[in-house]
């Protein structure tokens, strides 16, 4: 029952929270750059305006894939907040992204094609670390269910510092921040040709934005699992991490896809695996 409430709350509140986070993000980014920045509600105005635009497409099929992307992102987030099986959620999340990529392929346009390829490379870059993070959380909580992970009384972060750092690194990819915002970027001067979303416009682009809000809330929820033993510390830690992401976004230039792939795999291999290896050594008492 709790699960269903969590899912429903997520489906209703996540777009609001996600939009607010996006607004605050833009404000802080502006301040870091010495600008005033848009009002915090600006993301809502932007998306609202997108829904009033004329429905223009290259091919009708693109709308279908984007809708599927939105639906499955929302579904994986809802499953997460319902306390479901984390591995299953990770795979549902991947499915959602494959839909976005297929949407970009379907329009058969050079810019979105490149964007789609890059999005896939990013997916390949972050996936190992996400799976390892799920496995690490399992090893501490002894269950793949998010509900059990939240209920844990152990300070997970102390057991999984490496996994956490690795996850934060690939979070840069997921939040579409520099240096890994390769397939699409949210900076104004690059928005004209925006990789994977080049051919999406109007309400379709609005759906991509909303999906991204859902996604960000889900990801911050994932981050929270590392601190779940103490809600206050948890919320603060998530906020600080997000601030750090904004900072990194502002001080780095875009990396090439090779660098993104290598960093993603390296953090998974070095930080993630070593951490898990030590943990399993400690837990099994020497095996």
């Amino acid at each position, binding site marked *: 029952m709790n699960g269903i409430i969590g899912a429903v709350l997520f489906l209703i509140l996540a777009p609001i929270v996600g939009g607010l986070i996006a607004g605050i993000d833009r404000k802080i980014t502006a301040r870091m750059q010495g600008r005033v920045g848009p009002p915090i509600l600006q993301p809502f105005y932007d998306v609202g305006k997108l829904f009033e635009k*004329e*429905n*223009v*497409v*290259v*091919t*009708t*099929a693109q*709308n*279908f*894939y984007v*809708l*599927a992307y939105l*639906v499955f992102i929302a*579904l994986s987030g809802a*499953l997460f907040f319902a306390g*479901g099986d984390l*591995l*299953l959620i990770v*795979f*549902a999340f*991947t*499915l959602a992204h*494959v839909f976005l*990529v*297929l949407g*970009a*392929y*379907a*329009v*058969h*346009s*050079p*810019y*979105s*094609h490149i964007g*789609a*390829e890059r999005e*896939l*490379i990013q*997916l*390949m*870059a972050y*996936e*190992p*670390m996400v*799976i*390892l993070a799920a*496995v690490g959380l*399992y*090893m501490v909580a002894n269950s*793949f269910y998010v509900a059990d992970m939240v209920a844990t009384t152990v300070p997970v972060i102390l057991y999984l510092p490496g996994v956490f750092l690795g996850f934060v690194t690939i979070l840069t990819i997921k939040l579409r921040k520099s240096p890994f915002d390769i397939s699409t970027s949210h900076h104004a001067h690059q928005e004209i*040709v925006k990789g994977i979303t080049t*051919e999406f416009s109007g309400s379709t682009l609005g759906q991509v934005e909303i999906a991204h809000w859902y996604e960000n809330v889900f990801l911050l929820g994932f981050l929270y699992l590392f601190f779940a033993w103490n809600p206050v510390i948890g919320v603060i830690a998530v906020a600080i991490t997000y601030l750090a992401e904004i900072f990194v976004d502002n001080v780095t230039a875009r990396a090439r896809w090779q660098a993104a792939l290598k960093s993603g*795999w390296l953090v998974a*291999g070095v930080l993630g*695996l070593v951490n*898990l*290896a030590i943990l399993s050594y400690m837990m099994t008492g020497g*095996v």
Partner: protein
Amino acid sequence: MQTLLFLILFPILVACLLLFVKRTTLRYAVVALSALVIGGASIYLLMRYAFEGAVYFTAPSEAASLAMVAIEMGLALFIVYMGAKFRNYLAIALAVVQAALVVYLETTFSGNLHAVNNLFIDQFSIIMALIIGLIGSLIAVYAVRYMETYHHHHPEVRDRQTMFFFVTFAFLAAMFGLVFSNNLMWVFFFWEVTTISSFLLIGYSETEEATKNAFRALVMNLLGGVAFVVALIFLASTEATSGGIDLARVLASGDAAVILVPAVLIGFAGITKAALMPFSSWLLGAMVAPTPVSALLHSSTMVKAGVYILVRFSPVFAGTFAGFSIGLVGAVTFVVASAIAISQSNAKLVLAYSTIANLGLIAACAGVGNYMLVWAAILLIVFHAVAKSLLFLGTGAIEHRLGSRDIEDMEGLIVRMPKMAVMMFIGIAGMFLAPFGMLISKWAAIEAFVQVPFGLVFIAILAYGSAVTVFFWAKWMGKLVAVTRQAERVEKGFFEEPWAPLYIITGLVIATVLLFPVISSTLIEPYVLAIYGVTALLAQANVAIMLLMMALLLILPISFLLFRRSAKHLPAYMGGRPATPDLHFAGSLGLTREAQTRNYYLTEYFGEAKLFLPGMVVCTILILASWVLAGVAL
């Protein structure tokens, strides 16, 4: 028991009959009818024995065993003849060694070569029988028209279709025999028949390349065959403790250390047949054969025999270092083959590498072999068989229509061959997407490996491997769904493969995805329970979620209708230049230029040249390690 004997003998009968059928229409009738009979009989088998557990039969032994030895000798002579004809002395040497070992076994240990029961059936065998009986015979039906078109496209190839269909059905018979035999001598006999069948089918076109690759497959599989006989000799000489050549007794043997050596040797035979590294090159070489052969080898016969034997013996491997080592061979094969698949643009090669990868994953599960992993391995076998057969047959049909099997040339297939594109889409989705088949098994495998000592090694390999898998499948899918303007529809043609087998297999893919909880609870879970005393269970909540996702996927296409009425169409963005919908844009100097899109293949990182050799070296070392570890345990 009649059904078992029928399934083994009836295909042989059909095979002999097909030797005399020369006309395509008549051949189609015969093949389709026998496919119906074989498929029906395997479904009857399911209904008759699904709820009975393992049932053993004392099938006639003396005469049959004698005939088998005689045929084995005949086959050895055939290999010697072929080897002499094509100057492949390694094949001759292996065949002679193997024949000599068989003679030694028969003469020295004749007293120990009796199984209490020669035939048996349990849930795992039923699953295998369904794969062979339904998918194998559908491929045979598809092959009739395909081969007609094939000869139309390749006038230089000698028409040996009677031989082709004879071997195909003999192959199916051997596969049935393999999965029903409780007598390991029988298993070995059928094992060798599959080796020869694939040799003949791969070399079908008689070109120099085909002959070379056929011999490569033969040599590698004969290596496994030799290991198999050595295992039999070992078992026969330790009959009292190991249980001899009676499969059920061997698996139930109390002396785990004694049976580990033969198990590892038979596992080695499984590794060669399942084309794991370092033996994967034979399966890649087999791509020269006509596409139905590839479909047959990949989905319902040959390589499935290899993983079948590995999974059968996995209770012996479970918890041993030797088994762990075999599991690692599989895991390394999985990640290396998946990575190489990224660099391939030839559709058949992508399919081949992904088969090798999946077989690796199955072997990884079988080698480590706890109850959850065996559950996952069997589920993987099922999903791989249905999805892969669809993809191969689809690729064959596309190749005949487009004249190419390059993935780049499949761009916009959704416009050119919409039905085919949808079927390929379903097949590919079955290979890697949630909530479809393979993913369930990968998920189960991760959950299981977490609980195994040193399972972290496998988790790491799975994490990277499945990320890589997503990349190469998704970019292929992307090519299929690209909506290209002004492309011609080419679905119809003069020479047309029958679509019925394709439709049926597509239906099977969807059915397995929807029914997998049922398949799991009626067939796989009881088998695992019988072997291990515990069984893997899917959480009801997760099953519900997967069905929910499936339902969403089925409902979502309706949204197409919503978009159709209102949208206004524009050409793609081309840096602000005036453009047309078919990717032409106004370049400088008044010239119209065409933009093209090509996928990334990342050869620099994932190329065959870069990864194949290291993969082979690592796997060879691991195989040798598994022998040493088994020997140490003894």
